[in-house]
């Protein structure tokens, strides 16, 4: 089970970090933002490969580790839901922007509509 979780975390870490690096290379993302995502995903990988770390930190700070997995699981599901919603919304906005940009750029090719004179009411 741990191995599946580790593979899962690794795939997502590669995806996010690669995207972030490409964006940084293309100057679409700042260095700070790129470093932020790299650090976050290295932390996720560290937790996936050494899950005992969380329990150790919590128990060292006087906490109770019972039920911690459940809380983390719920948090993970919630985060997945939020990510999904953001992805869908971003996709929608991207499509609308595309459409807007296209219509604007094609505007010089659209034939001007002939103006019809309104008949004056006698």
């Amino acid at each position, binding site marked *: 089970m741990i191995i599946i979780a580790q593979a899962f975390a690794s795939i997502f870490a590669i*995806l996010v970090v690669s995207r972030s690096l*490409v964006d940084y*290379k293309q100057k679409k993302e700042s260095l700070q933002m790129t470093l932020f995502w790299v650090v976050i995903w290295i932390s996720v990988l560290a937790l996936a490969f050494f899950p005992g770390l969380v329990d150790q930190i919590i128990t060292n700070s006087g906490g109770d580790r019972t039920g911690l997995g459940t809380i983390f699981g719920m948090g993970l599901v919630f985060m997945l839901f939020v990510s999904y919603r953001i992805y869908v919304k971003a996709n929608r906005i991207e499509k609308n922007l595309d459409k807007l940009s*296209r219509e604007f*750029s*094609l505007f010089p090719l659209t034939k001007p509509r002939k103006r019809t004179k309104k008949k004056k009411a006698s």
Partner: protein
Amino acid sequence: MKLAIVIPVFNEGKVIKGVIDSIPKKIKGIDKLVIIAVNDGSTDNSAKEITKTKALLLSHTANMGAGAATITGLEAAKKLKADIAVTLDGDGQHDCQDIQKVVNPIIDKKADVVVGTRLKNPEGMPIYKRVGNIGLNAITFLLSGKWASDTQSGFKAFSKTALSALSLNNSGYEFCSETIINASKKRLKIVEIPIKVIYSGYSKKKGQSVFNGINIIAKLVYQKITKHI
């Protein structure tokens, strides 16, 4: 027959004039030729360089992606009532003399979509790009059932039927695979023609990165699951 040549342009100020000027003035079977350069929010002097040529300049206010710029160009081709549209990259990696080769199957009514394939003669193509292309070809095959040797080629030709039948939405490089998937779904006849590629230091820098390949796969799979392609 009227031919529209669509060139998506993003920061190609150094080479774009040369690319447009190298397009042959006469192509067999073609009476009218129009060149559409879509400036995709370039921050260099690309737009200025395009205005020095005979090409029609269309501009995206912001950088929307290679796919978005190509779709804009194809829409313009439709508006200009083109019978055939050819897309080629603005970085100078394509030999414009090959335009005749890719339009021939459409003129002869043997194809609706022609893909200019670089992988039948991949000399000069870096190995990591060849491997990446094979991976993306495999994904495209799994999603469309159609095998093409170079799905990521930007050198393509479309018949009038294909122009009106295709409904393309992707703004990034995944647009290349989407074209094959959509054409296959619409039962359009796809033909591959080997083309020459000019790999200069400049065009090698301009291509897709390996990391981008991973994102293309993720997007295509997501869109297939959500039935967007």
